[in-house]
């Protein structure tokens, strides 16, 4: 039942026939080979594979950081074909939130400023932006840490700030690159719980890249990648998000 609902939900990211060649000359590598992938609103998809399998390359292409050598990507129905670097940046601004393995917070800014920065790059400033940033931090359980700098936060707290930064602009897709890799088990669970909750929200798809089996219970769908090809796709073992959100 839930699988049918996922199939019906609006695709937020769509890749068709992706091939990505990296490097040149003797160092040329086909990092992705004829990949077809769809991330739908309301699902948490888990992309798993060994190192060098093409996970990060696929994430980069889906996140509009790379344009595919062959194939097409569309974000919320907008194709990236022919887009230059600034147009790709605009697509990221408008539709995609990122969470990185090593957080990539700004060490000289407070937690609140780090979150506000995601709005600032979108030209959203002032009281409304601050209020949204505070709200995002509250949502990830950091109501007491607005003024803390990254150095004053634990790894789990830093990743939660990064999640708040990713969601503060209300993107259609959230892409997370091994978000729990640098965290202990408890913090990893906490981060994945937040991400799965975010995925419940309508019109938002969450794609998590990782290779930790402990991520699997949170996924609606698990996709395996090896040697640049998607080799397997199955339902996750976690509770269906759309059903929890009242979809069925």
């Amino acid at each position, binding site marked *: 039942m839930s699988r049918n609902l996922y199939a019906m939900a609006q695709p937020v990211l769509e890749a068709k026939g992706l091939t990505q060649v990296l490097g040149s000359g003797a160092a040329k590598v086909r990092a992705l080979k004829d990949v077809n992938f769809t991330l739908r609103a309301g699902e948490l998809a888990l992309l798993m594979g060994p190192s060098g399998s093409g996970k990060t390359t696929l994430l980069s292409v889906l996140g509009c950081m790379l344009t595919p050598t062959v194939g097409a990507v569309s974000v919320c129905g907008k194709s990236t074909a022919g887009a230059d670097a600034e147009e790709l940046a605009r*697509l*990221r*601004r408008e539709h*995609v939130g*990122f969470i990185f393995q090593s957080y*990539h917070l700004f060490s000289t*800014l407070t937690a609140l*400023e780090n979150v506000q920065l995601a709005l600032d*790059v979108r030209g959203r*400033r002032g009281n409304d932006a601050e209020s949204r940033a505070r709200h995002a931090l509250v949502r990830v359980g950091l109501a007491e840490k607005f003024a803390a700098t990254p150095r004053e936060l634990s790894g789990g707290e830093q990743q939660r700030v990064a999640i708040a930064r990713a969601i503060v602009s209300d993107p259609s897709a959230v892409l997370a690159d091994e978000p729990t890799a640098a965290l202990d088990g408890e913090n990893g669970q906490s981060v994945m719980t937040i991400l799965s909750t975010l995925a419940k929200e309508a019109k938002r798809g969450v794609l998590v890249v990782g290779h930790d089996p402990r991520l699997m219970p949170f996924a609606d769908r698990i996709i395996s990648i090896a040697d640049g090809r998607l080799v397997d796709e199955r339902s996750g073992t976690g509770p269906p998000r759309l059903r929890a959100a009242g979809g069925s």
Partner: protein
Amino acid sequence: MPLNFTLALRNLFHDRLRFVATMVGIVFSVVLVLVQMGLYLGFGRVVSTMIDHASADLWIVRQGTKCFEDPSLLDAHVRDDVLATAGVASAVPVVIGFSDWRLPSGEMTPVFVVGTDLNANGLHPWNVTAGSIKALANDKAVAVDQTYFKRLGVSGIGSTADLRGRPVRVSAVTDGIRSFTTTPYVFADLKRARDYTGVPSNKLSYLLVKLKPGADVAQVQRALHSAIPSTEALTRAAFRDRSRNFWLFGTGAGAALFAGALLGLIVGTVIVAQTLYSSTKDHIDEFATLRALGSSNAYIYRVIIYQALLSAAIGFCFAAVIGFIVVEVTTKGALPVVITPALIAAIFGLTVAMCIASAFAAILRVLRIDPVMVFTR
């Protein structure tokens, strides 16, 4: 306040050693430019000090005269032709020239004598602190500046010496009439100035012309030129510019000052560019993150430009304080450093331009940022 400004501010102060290096570069550069340009202005003022203090609408000078100290002489009868020209109210003769001052110890030192008719409003000493201009009418009377007392071997009013073999007595003392050549000025009555300089009675150095009320300056100049073709009738501003151009550019002094300023700018630009570039490299992950978050290139450039502008503003403030200390220290010197509001504004603009130009290397580095790098770091 946009957060990229906050980010720029925090990044700037984050690495204190680099911040200090940036400040040293900017302060060194700006102080050098400020002092060089201040010397240029000071030099310009000093070389025209006599022209600026003379009471004249027009200066009648020998054709081709380059500066106030030019030894060219006019025939004395020129004065009659000048006075006969329509629009001329008065023409006061001035005699100048180098002479030898013998100290009571017997030692000799060169001086520059300025002689004028004391009964007319011509070129009298100013800033008289002791004695009086009227006293210069007395026999042997001269006026000297107190800054040259030691050099001239005098101690004030009543001191005596020899000038070109003739006894003189200090009857007036001035303050601040300094010569950029370091040769002291000595003021005297016109007749005795001829004796001291050897200018014969049928010659004179300049005529200081006052025009009748309502007279058209350009028209009088044309009339004077056609009546006395061997002379030129220069306005005060024209003679001042000619004097300044001669001393500043004819001698190469001005070019040397500008070259020093240019060197300061180049050194400053290189230092600031280097520190901005290294700061940008150190924060390259943050810039890549901004790019990954979807910021435009312009947003990132502004971080670097803000850093450059903040550096410029802070560095300029330090440099300005040092500049004003230099002004204070040199104000009584032979060549004072002069800082005007216009100079301050111009150098602030130059500092900002220098810092923005310095940001180009850092911006070029940011241009090459690939946001994908955020996944690998």
